[in-house]
C-alpha cells in the first residue's frame, strides 16, 4: 500500500556482531523531497543507507519502501523494487572493464528489450545531463574523481528511478565540483520529481540541497527537521556538529591511565 511517504523506517536496530550500530531509528522520507542524513564519523549513517538499500539486514525493525517492507520480503520483490531506484556510491563503483557509456547502459541491457539505437540515445541524454558526453568512451581509470561521481550518477538515473540515493557525493571533491554536483541533485529532484536520499557530512552541501535533514549521533536519531529547524536547534549534539565544536574528552584520570597501560589482548 503506497503512502505519501516514499520510505518509512520504524524501530530499526542494527548490529555488527555484538556491537549495536543503530538503535531505535524512526524516519519518514516523503515523496519528492531531498532528505539528507548527516552525522559525525561513526554515527551509523552509512549503515543506515545500506539497510535502506537492502544490502544489510537489520536486527529488528521495518523499512517500508514504496509500500513494500524490504526487511521481510522475497528476493524477487526486492529486485523488482530495486529497478525503481538508483544508487550513486561514494567511490562511483564503476565497472573497470567497461567504458563510461557501457557502465551506464548496463541496467538498460539487463532489464529492457530496447534496440541498440534507443539505448545509445538514452545513454547520451543522461551523459549530457551530467556533462559527461565528451567522455563516453573513456575507461573509469581515465576519469578524475568528479568525473567518476558524475558517471556514477548518470548510471543511477538511466532507468528514471523514483528513488535516488547518494553516499557521500562530495567526498574528495573540490568546492566548485561539489557545488556543481549539488546543483545537479536539486535539478534532478525538480525536473524528474525523484525522492532523493543523501548521506553526507559536508555542511555546505547539506544546506544547499536539503528539504529536510536527519541527524544521527552514536547510532541514534538526534533530530529530524527542515534546515531552519536544524539551524535553530538547541541540542548540543546538533550545534556541535553544525559549528564544528570538538568533543570534550572528559575521561577519568584513572580510567585514562588504565587504558594506556593495559595488555593489548584485553
Amino acid at each position, binding site marked *: 500500500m503506497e503512502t505519501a511517504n516514499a520510505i518509512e523506517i520504524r524501530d530499526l536496530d542494527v548490529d555488527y556482531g555484538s556491537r549495536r550500530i543503530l538503535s531505535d531509528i524512526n524516519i519518514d522520507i516523503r515523496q519528492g523531497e531531498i532528505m539528507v542524513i548527516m552525522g559525525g564519523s561513526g554515527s551509523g549513517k552509512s549503515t543506515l543507507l545500506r539497510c535502506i*538499500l537492502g544490502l544489510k539486514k537489520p536486527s529488528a525493525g521495518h523499512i517500508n519502501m514504496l509500500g513494500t517492507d524490504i526487511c521481510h520480503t522475497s528476493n524477487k520483490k526486492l529486485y523488482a523494487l*530495486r529497478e525503481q531506484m538508483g*544508487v550513486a556510491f561514494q*567511490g562511483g563503483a564503476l*565497472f573497470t572493464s567497461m567504458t563510461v557509456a557501457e557502465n551506464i547502459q548496463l541496467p538498460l541491457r*539487463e532489464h529492457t528489450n530496447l534496440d541498440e539505437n534507443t539505448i545509445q540515445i538514452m545513454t547520451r541524454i543522461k551523459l549530457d545531463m551530467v556533462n559527461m558526453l565528451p567522455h563516453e568512451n573513456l575507461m573509469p581509470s581515465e576519469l578524475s574523481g568528479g568525473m567518476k561521481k558524475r558517471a556514477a550518477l548518470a548510471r543511477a538515473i538511466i532507468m528514471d528511478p523514483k528513488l535516488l*540515493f547518494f553516499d557521500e557525493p562530495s567526498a574528495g571533491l573540490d568546492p566548485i565540483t561539489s557545488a556543481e554536483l549539488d546543483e545537479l541533485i536539486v535539478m534532478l529532484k525538480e525536473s524528474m520529481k525523484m525522492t532523493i536520499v543523501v548521506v553526507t557530512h559536508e555542511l555546505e552541501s547539506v544546506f544547499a540541497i536539503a528539504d529536510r535533514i536527519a541527524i544521527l549521533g552514536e547510532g541514534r536519531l538526534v533530530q529530524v527537521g527542515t534546515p531552519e529547524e536544524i539551524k535553530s536547534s538547541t541540542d548540543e549534539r546538533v550545534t556541535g556538529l553544525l559549528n564544528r565544536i570538538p568533543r570534550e574528552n572528559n575521561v577519568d584520570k584513572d580510567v585514562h591511565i588504565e587504558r594506556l597501560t593495559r595488555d593489548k*589482548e584485553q
Partner: protein
Amino acid sequence: MIKAISNLGSYAIETIEQTGRTFNLLLIIAWKMFLPPYQIFPIIKQIYFIGARSLTVIIISGGTIGMVLGLQFYNTLERFGSVSVLGSAVALSIIRELGPVMTALMVVGRAGSAICAELGIMRISEQVDALECMAIPPDKYLVAPKLIAGIVSVPLLNFVFNVVAIGGGYFVGVIMLGVSEGSYVNGMIDSVVWGDVRLGMVKSIIFGMLITLICCAKGFYLHLSRYGSQGAEGVSRATTDAVVISSISVLFFDFLIGALMS
C-alpha cells in the same frame, strides 16, 4: 595456551562457514544458470580468458613434463629391459593422472588467482553492491560465466596438455634416445583404453568446476572473511588462500576420483 585453542576454534568455525558458503554458491549458480537472461557472450569471454589465454602455459608445461616423463621412464625401464613400453607408460601416466592434475594446477596459478583478485577488488570497491542495487544478481552475472567457462575450458586444455605431453615423451624417447617409433605408438594404442580416457575427462571436468568455484567464492565472499576489511592486503591473502586451497583440493579429489572409479 587458551588463546591458541580459541584461535584454532575460530579458524575451524570460519573454515566450516566458508565451505558452506562455497557449496551454497554452487547450488545457487546451478539453479540460476538455467534461468534467463542467458549469459552467452560473457561465457565466451571467460572461456577465452580461462581457456585460450592459458594455452601457452599449458603447451609449454605439457611439453616439458612429457619430456621429463620420457627421460625418467626410459632410465627406469632400461634397467628392466622394457623400454618398448615407454609409450604406454608415458601415455597412461599423462592421460590418467598428470594431464588433469597439472592442467588444473596451471589454470589455478594463471586464471584462478586473477579471478579471485578481480572479484575481491570488485567486492571491496562496492561494484558488487552496485550490481545488487541495479537488480542484477551478482552471483549470476559475475560468477556463473566463470564457473561454466572453467567446466568447459579445463577439459579442453587437458586434451591439449595430453597431446603435447605425449609428443614430448615421443621426442625424448624416440628421437633422442632411440626407442622404436612403432613400439612407442603401438604400445600407447594397445594399452590406453576408453576407461583411462574417461577417468581423465571426469577428473578434468570436476577439477575445472572445483578450482573456479573455490577461486570465485574466495573473492566473491571476501567481505565475510576474517580479513575482508583489510583492503589490498585482504585481497592478497584471499588470492593466496584461493590458490593453495584449490591446489590441495585438486590433489585430494584426484585421489578420491581415482579410488572411486578404479
